[in-house]
């Protein structure tokens, strides 16, 4: 009997655990360790943030699903990994700390044959002084943050209904933040809600971003076929912002936030400020901060993790200039090169470099988006890791049949731009692959025939449909395994 431990129950971890248990059955053990008692469908947090969905529509309790699947679920956070065991036993284990209940604060050693690190991002609000829901800005990164954002947004809307002008500042809250797509989506939805209430004359909506050009989205931008032209996503993004009456500040890295005032540095090295009444700024991400120790108790964290806390995998981490980056730099199996029974899925893996070109301000501060690896790539990676582990356990496989490089994987990004079955909108974009491959696609970096860039009601329906479909899948309802990642 083999034992697989999955750290994290987000899109990646939950997908991995689901497929592991389905394929391994009763003979083998699957354990999930997660400090959160809920699964959340993160893409729909935006709708919680504008009051169109409730918290309970985007989340559900994990324990019931794991009980049904006979997965051992521990509500705890991972503290450290001992991939070689310790002085008492050679068996590898992860140390976890329970976060609730009678066992709160207790440390337990959970041994494993295979470990999947799917801990996702630490929302690094501390990296920008004054940022975050406990301070001066709101967030939509989790369902509780999004619910809080809706409360604050309602206050702002009420002030406008009483004739008071409001400035909304939405975008990235760190020089290297990612998830521009989520912030962009929130900006469009706020504009939609303002317009719905006929309050545009009292609103100034500002998009602030660390992107070199709009439409970068941490992917270095893309090209789409639209209206008889091959159009950069810069034009696509600018067009929709202009249509919604949103002005923008680009090449801007927020480095400090005070009460109603955001401080940012421009790529040119200028220090500027932007006033706001309501601000939703995405924080930078970091790894979960898990440590690692060898059998003697020596700290080997740097063997498993990069300094930013993300786990080293089968990527090419050789430092090289942007012009020498290749799609093949990106990992395929997400296996740690030193400990072959440890994998990192979703945001938890350390990318070889960004996708967007690295930039530095005139003051020497790096300013460019970190690479996004949320949503579809996360789910696919979780599934592929699970299938490879299953092959190892059941067939003794020594090579990996299943691979999922972001340099070959496609992704769809649907940016809601207004909620409503009759009057909603969304911008639908597909890219293939996620990471540009200029060797294979010298003209546009990606397969131009596989790209889509459309705005319309259909996109909104698709996003709603995907919400219900992925919730169905995550809850383990009938035929969940047939639904794609």
């Amino acid at each position: 009997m083999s034992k697989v431990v999955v750290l994290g129950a987000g899109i990646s971890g939950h997908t991995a655990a689901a497929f592991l248990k389905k394929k391994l059955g009763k003979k083998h053990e699957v354990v999930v360790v997660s400090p959160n008692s809920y699964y959340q469908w993160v893409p729909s947090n935006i709708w919680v943030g504008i009051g169109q969905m409730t918290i309970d529509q985007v989340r559900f309790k994990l324990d019931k699903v794991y009980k049904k699947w006979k997965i051992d679920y521990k509500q705890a956070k991972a503290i450290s990994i001992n991939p070689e065991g310790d002085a008492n036993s050679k068996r590898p284990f992860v140390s976890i700390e329970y976060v609730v209940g009678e066992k709160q604060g207790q440390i337990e050693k959970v041994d494993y044959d295979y470990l999947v690190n799917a801990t996702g991002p630490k929302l690094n609000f501390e990296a920008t002084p004054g940022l975050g829901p406990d301070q001066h800005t709101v967030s939509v990164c989790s369902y509780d943050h999004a619910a809080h954002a809706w409360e604050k947004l309602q206050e702002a809307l009420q002030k406008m209904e009483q004739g008071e002008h409001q400035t909304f500042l939405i975008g990235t809250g760190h020089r290297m933040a990612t998830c521009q797509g989520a912030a962009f989506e929130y900006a469009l939805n706020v504009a939609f809600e303002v317009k719905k209430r006929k309050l545009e004359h009292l609103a100034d909506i500002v998009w602030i971003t660390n992107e070199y050009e709009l439409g970068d989205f941490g992917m270095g931008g893309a090209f789409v076929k639209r209206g008889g032209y091959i159009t950069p996503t810069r034009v696509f993004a600018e067009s929709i912002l202009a249509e919604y009456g949103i002005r923008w500040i680009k090449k801007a890295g927020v480095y400090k936030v005070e009460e109603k005032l955001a401080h940012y540095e421009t790529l040119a090295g200028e220090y500027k400020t932007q006033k706001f009444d309501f601000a939703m700024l995405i924080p930078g991400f970091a790894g979960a901060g898990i440590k690692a120790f060898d059998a003697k108790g020596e700290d080997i964290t740097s063997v498993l993790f990069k300094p930013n806390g993300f786990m080293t995998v089968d990527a090419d981490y050789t430092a090289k200039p942007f012009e020498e980056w290749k799609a093949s730099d990106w990992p395929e199996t997400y296996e740690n090169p030193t400990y072959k029974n440890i994998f990192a899925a979703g945001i938890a893996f350390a990318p070889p470099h960004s996708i967007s070109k690295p930039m530095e301000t005139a003051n020497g501060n790096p300013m460019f988006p970190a690479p996004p690896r949320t949503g579809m790539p996360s789910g696919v990676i979780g599934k592929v890791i699970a299938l490879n582990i299953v092959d190892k356990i059941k067939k003794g496989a020594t090579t990996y049949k299943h691979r999922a490089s972001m340099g070959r994987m496609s992704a769809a990004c649907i940016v809601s731009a207004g909620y409503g079955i009759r009057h909603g909108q969304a911008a639908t974009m597909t890219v293939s692959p996620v990471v540009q491959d200029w060797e294979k696609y010298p003209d546009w970096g990606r397969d131009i025939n596989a790209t889509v860039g459309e705005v319309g009601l259909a996109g909104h329906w698709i996003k709603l449909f995907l919400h219900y479909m992925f919730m169905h899948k995550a809850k383990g309802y009938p035929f969940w395994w047939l639904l794609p990642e």
Partner: protein
Amino acid sequence: MENKKIIVRGYKDEFYPPIPTRGTKFWRGCFIYQIYKFFVLNYKIMMMVVKGHS
């Protein structure tokens, strides 16, 4: 005579991107056309996802 505020549509970033025409906005919201688009986009996305990993 009432002084009407004149806005010159130029010389700022937000004035240069393409803005959809009334016709484009109509088709974006046209129910029947968007039902067709729903199936076409879903098909494209599905094909892309299926080819996405080995």
